[in-house]
């Protein structure tokens, strides 16, 4: 049978960025920002994120916190991303975000409050314009597109300075319509927005391979006509470099970008999950060897910037910070029961006054206090 002649009309390449290999050796000259001070600061924030996650899981196990999603093993993505934003850029996080939140100035007490069942944690004292943690998968990517439209609109119509929206999501989120709709719109409207995908290989128990036949998640950007890059998500220098570069390009009007940061979820999905039911132990062991903290620590040690003594000193300092924040979390009284009416609308509609009064006087069944 005659085989028709075909013309190649489009093709694509996916680039991968790495600065530090698994042993913590530089694979190329580091970017300009990678001064000793900056690298030490990144290390410190990753260590703090790990400490917070570790304690949060323990608090949950002892009944002092609700369900908690640890970011164990993915600290480089959160810290690398969060540190790439300017303070007046806007972050639209998903829910596995300890490192990024710390970078944005969200306090540990606020993070604990959120997972400890108190909306007041989402009322960030800093980062006032950032979106709150977002639980429904991928929905925040559309909020970021909307924020980016508003930022560009304010620049165009009102003379505001250029700002950028950044949003994050997991690999599972890239199977959802919200993701495709967000990158598609961002491309068509050339929005100043950067999407960072934390590809930690798992969406609860569904593996990356079971999620998509695409060989990279980054390439999903190709269909939307936007730029993309895959980075080693266990290399905080690569994450920071990629996100910062994407943000600055977006700020200059070059449009959106999708960044896939490849890592591994070393914890359960949340404290309500048991990954041993589906996560192969060998795979987990191999992933542990690639984790981001020891990688940067090795680099710093080789560079003469770190040693056991400094590590001990750091852990002592971070533990003190954590204890202080824990005290704040524990000491905060629960909100008044009527607080559930306080921010439902800008002003409480008359139709709700009676219910508000009812909750104000009623004592819930089983509440003996």
């Amino acid at each position, binding site marked *: 049978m005659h085989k028709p002649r075909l013309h190649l009309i489009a093709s694509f390449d996916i680039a991968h960025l790495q600065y530090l290999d698994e042993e913590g050796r530089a694979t190329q000259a580091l970017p300009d920002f990678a001064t000793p001070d900056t690298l030490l600061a990144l290390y410190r924030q990753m260590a703090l994120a790990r400490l917070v996650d570790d304690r949060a899981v323990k608090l949950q196990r002892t009944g002092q916190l609700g369900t908690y999603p640890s970011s164990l093993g993915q600290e480089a993505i959160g810290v690398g991303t969060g540190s790439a934003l300017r303070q007046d850029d*806007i972050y639209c996080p998903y829910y596995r975000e300890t490192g990024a939140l710390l970078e944005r100035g969200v306090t540990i007490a606020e993070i604990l409050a959120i997972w400890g069942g108190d909306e007041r944690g*989402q009322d960030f004292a800093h980062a006032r314009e950032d979106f709150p943690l977002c639980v429904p998968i991928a*929905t925040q990517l559309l909020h970021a597109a909307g924020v*980016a439209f508003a930022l560009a*609109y304010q620049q165009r119509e009102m003379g505001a300075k250029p700002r950028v929206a950044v949003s994050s999501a997991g690999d599972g989120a890239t199977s959802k319509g919200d993701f495709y709709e967000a990158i598609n719109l961002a491309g068509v409207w050339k929005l100043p927005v950067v999407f960072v995908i934390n590809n930690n290989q798992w969406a609860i128990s569904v593996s990356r391979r079971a999620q998509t036949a695409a060989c990279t998640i980054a390439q999903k950007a190709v269909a939307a006509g936007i730029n993309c890059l895959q980075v080693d998500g266990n290399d905080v220098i690569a994450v920071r470099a990629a996100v910062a570069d994407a943000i600055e390009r977006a700020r200059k009007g070059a449009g959106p970008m999708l960044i896939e940061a490849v890592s591994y979820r070393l914890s359960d999905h949340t404290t309500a999950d048991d990954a041993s039911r589906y996560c192969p132990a060998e795979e987990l062991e191999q992933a542990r060897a690639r984790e981001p903290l020891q990688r940067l620590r090795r680099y710093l040690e080789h560079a003469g910037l770190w040693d056991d003594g400094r590590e001990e000193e750091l852990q002592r300092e971070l533990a003190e910070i954590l204890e202080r924040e824990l005290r704040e979390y524990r000491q905060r009284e629960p909100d008044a029961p009527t607080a559930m009416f306080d921010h439902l609308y800008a002003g409480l509609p008359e139709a709700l006054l009676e219910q508000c009064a009812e909750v104000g006087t009623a004592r819930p069944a089983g509440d003996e206090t």
Partner: protein
Amino acid sequence: MAAITLVEAVTLALAHELRQDKRVVVFGQDVGVNGGVFRATDGLQAEFGTDRVLDTPLAENMIAGIAIGMAAQGLRPVAEFQFMGFIYPGFDQVLNHAARLRNRTRGRLSCPIVYRAPYGGGIHAPEHHSESTEALFAHIPGLRVVVPSSPARAYGLLLAAIRDPDPVVFLEPKRIYRAARQEVPDDGEALPLDHCFRLREGSDITLVAWGAALKETLAAAEALASEGVEAEVIDPATLKPLDIHTIIDSLEKTRRCVVIHEAARFGGLGAEIIAQVNEYAFDLLDAPVCRVTGYDTVMPYYRLENHYLPDVDRILAGVRRTLEYPA
């Protein structure tokens, strides 16, 4: 001042707010160059430019979701869903985020959004273009649901919705988009939300209806008047939160009530109104409150739609049952 239709009043209100508030942006499928499939945004892109009146890609969930980001950043987005039947992909964003962002952030961020959608049956449209599912939205805490029923109320309530600091689902009864003309001054005067409108005074029975169903309800009231029965007609207009007081005030006088809506009966807003009447005004009633509604069936294709929609005869039958109780 020319008399205008309901859909022209929508355009007039949008133009007024676009003109006086730089934060207002209008977007959706076909709202730009084409001026909307019902022409509700006709001429707006030409006047206000492609930066403020935008055609979006075809994705309702995206339309719902980006409005949240825009609003949180201080804009006043007015998003159009082409038909109510196609809102559902965006339901997640409306329910889980637009309605809750203020609460979730303890007032730090908010969603002053208007989600507009043509709704209701009676225009011989294909499947999915004729349903009335306002009760789905009215059930959601944090939302307002508003339905205008005349050109003047479309203008005044849409202005109020755009200026409201919280999300409003603004459902436009497309069967009466061009059914009547009315002189509407473009004076920028908003009408109050959360407030019933008394469209007709009467002392014998209270008829509660909204949107296009008011056309038949008012016609039924005229027919009753010729028989010597004076019906009071109340248009809640804001279905959530509901101003039950105006309805109960009316019942003080009439002691009998019929609720009319196009939507299916089970769990419809008639049920909510009746439940509140029972809770607050049971002793006032001389008869059970009657519902005249769409049936608990799938909205039929258009050859049967007039059998589904409440008409004057069905309303009159409901009124007679209520007036004759306990016969």
